[in-house]
């Protein structure tokens, strides 16, 4: 039901491509990231971390560090006798007057360890003779999910595919590392922190430090990426605050790249042994999957399986396996890239058993179409746009070493809004300030907050001053689960509409009409239907008087939605003499409800696709199988795509204004790796059932294929 808050039917700004408000500040360096914050008398913090994957701390000697030049505070983070559970587990910290001295002093802290048995990978942890490393067991078996009669399902199958599929551990690799600057004033703490959750960070500081939340002020104006790994101060934030308290001076503690890889989260691995059945005419009949994965030391590793497609009978068990490595954290669409990959590679193998086109096969086995399940339409639109009709059957017949192929994959995501609050001031000089305690984690939130207000007031974006990223602002949730836009935009809309109504009430008498007859459009307030009878925005605001219009509001039902769907197509070429895969084209079709800023929405899709190319081809957290220590904790040997590794990417957004705002941060990263792997399979005829698609796997799969099939 339309009401006064409903999104405009003919928007002036919403759905158009609007450049980021803070683009110029970012490219000129005016934008201050946490890393750029410097306070008078500020010290630098540095942590000491366990080099071993599992050990008991035998002694910690801080004395040399305490005496080192420039050192103002030293602390032990763990007690003697405590266990460290992974390489990078925090042990102690120092603060000194320069970064270099802090680093030198940190290296003077002498920690003695007694090494304990550890697991560097799931095979070691799952071995029958594995030592007990984790209290309560090295693995945790989850509940069995079961639907329908599996035996009957397999009985109906004309073909059965049985294989093991796997994805690996990758880390978030935020360009800006984790960290903060902490400054105390008595028992009040101000923290500039690189976070996806500015208000929740204040709460967590307060809890961990035993001070009232009202005493904590957190600020995050600009951030270089979080991807799910930055929802609070973490150990480094709390340590930074403690060092600042001890030293009686502000402290900056930003992690280095190695610490990022070791201790700020990762995407858990996923492996599944799957049996699946299909009828001769291409209907799925049964799915039986046993999966496991590791989220590191004592953390979970769940993911949806099977993904999307309709297996009428199915059974699935999952086991968390603990290894001595940093704990997982939410990472862009947690669980979905894994479940998607394991299912989508299987789908192509199933389609091939009856020589059916992968798109036709998928469409046949989709759940019913719905606003949050648009796959059938997207498969059709995408196939046309991508030139799917030119796809050859599995195995490129072209002579020569370069084989090209196409692949496809589908995904879904939730996203939903709730709970955000906002505040709008309209001043008598026409100025507008919009405040909301949400944060722009690089996604464009600052810009779309301004756009929604500008749309409502009938003004250009430049007329709006946006204030976000500060815990003193009206409540808004953390930016995770693609919920930011769907939470904050309704709050901005509601508050702006209410503020405009208050303005109309002041303006109506001057125009000799009732407030409900007024509209704000094109920089003017006028009587609906008679644009001549009105005032410019500036003149209208002169009627406000001394007390500005000042309105609070909050998220309301009906302006946001939940549930998105997407399909992606990939084209890749494979050099079968070297095993090198090059992705040549990606088409991403995605909906996210009402599109606020087309440009930043597309930008999320580009970013998601590029991140997933990394997942498909390059990234890999490699722990030495013997010592359990990471061999590639940098950005050289931990491979990441450069510009020349990024293919042509086309984005097709499906605007669905009737569904309200739904987020887009996560879904576009789900399908890409699966589509690429399927393209590689289509190119070569060789099936690679695990990521990354490293040349060693491609060559091995080609060898197997030559030797008569990959099963």
């Amino acid at each position, binding site marked *: 039901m339309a009401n006064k808050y409903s999104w405009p039917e003919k928007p002036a700004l919403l759905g158009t491509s609007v450049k980021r408000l803070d683009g110029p500040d970012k490219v000129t360096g005016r934008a201050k990231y946490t890393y750029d914050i410097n306070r008078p008398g500020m010290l630098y913090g540095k942590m000491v971390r366990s*080099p071993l994957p599992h050990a008991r701390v035998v002694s910690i000697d801080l004395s040399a560090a305490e005496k080192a030049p420039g050192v103002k505070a030293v602390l032990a983070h763990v007690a003697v006798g405590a266990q460290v559970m992974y*390489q990078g587990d925090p042990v102690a910290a120092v603060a000194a007057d320069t970064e*270099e001295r802090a680093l030198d002093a940190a*290296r003077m802290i002498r920690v003695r360890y007694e090494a304990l048995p550890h697991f560097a990978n799931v095979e070691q942890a799952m071995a029958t003779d594995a030592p007990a490393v984790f209290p309560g067991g090295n693995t945790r078996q989850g509940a069995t999910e079961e639907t329908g009669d599996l035996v009957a399902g397999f009985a109906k199958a004309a073909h059965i595919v049985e294989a093991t599929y796997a994805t690996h551990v990758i880390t978030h690799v935020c360009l800006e590392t984790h960290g903060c600057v902490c400054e105390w004033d008595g028992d009040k703490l101000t923290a500039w922190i690189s976070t996806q959750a500015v208000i929740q960070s204040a709460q967590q500081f307060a809890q961990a430090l035993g001070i009232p939340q009202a005493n904590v002020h957190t600020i995050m104006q600009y951030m270089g990426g979080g991807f799910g790994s930055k929802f609070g101060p973490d150990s480094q934030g709390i340590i930074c605050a403690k060092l600042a308290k001890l030293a009686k001076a502000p402290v900056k503690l930003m992690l280095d790249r190695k610490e990022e890889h070791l201790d700020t989260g990762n995407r858990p691995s996923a492996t599944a042994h799957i049996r699946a059945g299909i009828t001769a005419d291409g209907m799925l009949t049964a799915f039986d999957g046993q999966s496991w994965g590791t989220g590191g030391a004592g953390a979970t590793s769940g993911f949806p399986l099977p993904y999307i497609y309709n297996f009428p009978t199915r059974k699935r068990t999952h086991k968390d396996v603990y290894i001595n490595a940093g704990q997982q954290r939410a990472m862009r669409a947690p669980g979905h890239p894994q479940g998607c990959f394991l299912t989508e590679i299987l789908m192509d193998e199933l389609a091939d058993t009856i020589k059916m086109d992968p798109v036709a096969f998928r469409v046949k086995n989709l759940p019913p179409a719905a606003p949050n399940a648009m796959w059938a339409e997207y498969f059709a639109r995408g196939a046309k746009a991508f030139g799917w009709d030119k796809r050859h059957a599995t195995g490129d017949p072209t002579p*020569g*070493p*370069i084989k090209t192929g196409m692949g496809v994959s589908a995904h879904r995501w939730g996203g939903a809004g709730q709970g955000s609050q906002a505040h709008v001031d309209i001043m008598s000089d026409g100025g507008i300030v919009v405040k909301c305690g949400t944060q722009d984690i690089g996604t464009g939130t600052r810009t779309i907050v301004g756009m929604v207000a500008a749309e409502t007031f009938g003004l250009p974006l430049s007329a709006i001053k946006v204030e976000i990223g500060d815990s003193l602002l009206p409540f808004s949730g953390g930016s995770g689960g693609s919920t930011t836009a769907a939470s904050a935009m309704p709050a901005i809309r509601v508050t702006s509409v209410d503020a405009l109504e208050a303005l109309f009430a002041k303006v109506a008498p001057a125009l000799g009409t009732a407030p409900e007859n007024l509209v704000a459009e094109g920089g003017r307030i006028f009587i609906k239907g008679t644009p001549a009878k009105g005032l410019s925005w500036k003149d209208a605001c002169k009627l406000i008087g001394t007390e500005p219009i000042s309105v609070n509001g909050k998220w309301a039902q009906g302006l946001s939605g939940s549930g998105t769907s997407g399909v992606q197509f990939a084209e890749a070429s494979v*050099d079968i*003499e*070297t*095993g*090198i895969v090059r992705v040549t084209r990606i088409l991403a079709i995605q909906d996210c409800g009402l599109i606020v800023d087309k440009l930043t929405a597309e930008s999320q899709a580009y970013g998601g696709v590029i991140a997933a190319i990394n997942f498909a*081809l*390059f990234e890999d957290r*490699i722990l*030495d*199988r*013997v*010592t359990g*220590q*990471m*061999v*590639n*904790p*940098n950005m*050289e*040997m931990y*491979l990441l*795509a*450069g*510009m*020349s*590794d990024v293919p042509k990417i086309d984005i097709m957004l499906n605007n669905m204004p009737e569904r309200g705002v739904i987020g887009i941060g996560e879904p576009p990263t789900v399908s890409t790796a699966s589509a690429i792997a399927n393209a590689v399979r289509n190119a070569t005829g060789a099936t690679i059932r695990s990521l990354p698609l*490293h*040349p*060693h796997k491609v*060559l*091995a799969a080609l060898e197997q294929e030559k030797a008569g099939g990959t099963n």
Partner: protein
Amino acid sequence: MKAFSYVNPSSEKEAVAALKTDGIAMVIGGGQDLLARMKDYIDSPDRLVNVKGLDATMTSTPDGGMKIGSAVKIIDLFEHAQVAKLYPSVNAAAIEVGTPQIRNQGTVGGNVNQRPRCWYFRNEEFVCFKKGGSRCFAVNGENQYHAIFGNEGPSHIVHPSSLAVPFMAYGAKFRVLGPNGEREIAAADYFTMPTLQNVLKENVLDDEDILTHVILPAPGIVKSGHYEVRYKASHDWPLAFSTVVLTMSGNTISSARVVLGAVAPIPWRSKAAEAFLAGKPLNEATAAAAGEAAVSEAKPMSGNAYKVQIAKTAVKRAIMNAAGLNTV
């Protein structure tokens, strides 16, 4: 990193003299390798001796070859017309090194003398043979990027220098200056296979030696080709690569130099491929067979057998490049 002193010598002799100290002195060129090692606490020299101010010219020699100063930047080496004309494979190797930033900063001397990229070597936690320890972590560990030739140990690195491979293929000599004067060393004798005695180094340089020049002989009537197999298009290391220099009589190869990179602790000359090529016509079939010959004696480790296929392809395609044939 540890604090250090910095010496800026104005001559080769001063540079050599500055290397004499009670502490640890090291030569610094572009610093692309050394500074990273210092930041990662792999090396902690007390003194750095800057050699960027030394000879950075590329000049013709009387016999029709070229003399390249070790302070020449990789990008300048790439852009030099005479180098490109006489030694196209040097040119081809130079442009693939690292990234534009690395090529703009890195020097010929630094590239040839850079230390291994083995990830155990580059991470402080692992005290392996090359850091004075008593084991090689790669043997039972993560060795997908390690050697497939020359795997007798104790170290199983692949030599990191891209330029060293074409230098060796063209028969370069390295001019070295030390406290006892200068000497010229053939590229083939410059790089050393690891032994328990010399595993801390990859070449014959002593602590107070500097490399001053790379001297390339006149190439003669040759066809040369260079091919690198890279996973990422930039900011990465080759998985394997090869330079071939073929002395031709008509369309017949009379003799050949086949050198492989990223496959062994030194730039790896394949005598088997060279022997095979002598007397063969230059065509695709010859290239493919020479690739096979080049890897016939490969001894991969537990996790890098795939590199044998890649090395084979690199040799084949380097020869096809030399023949002017399309490689893919």
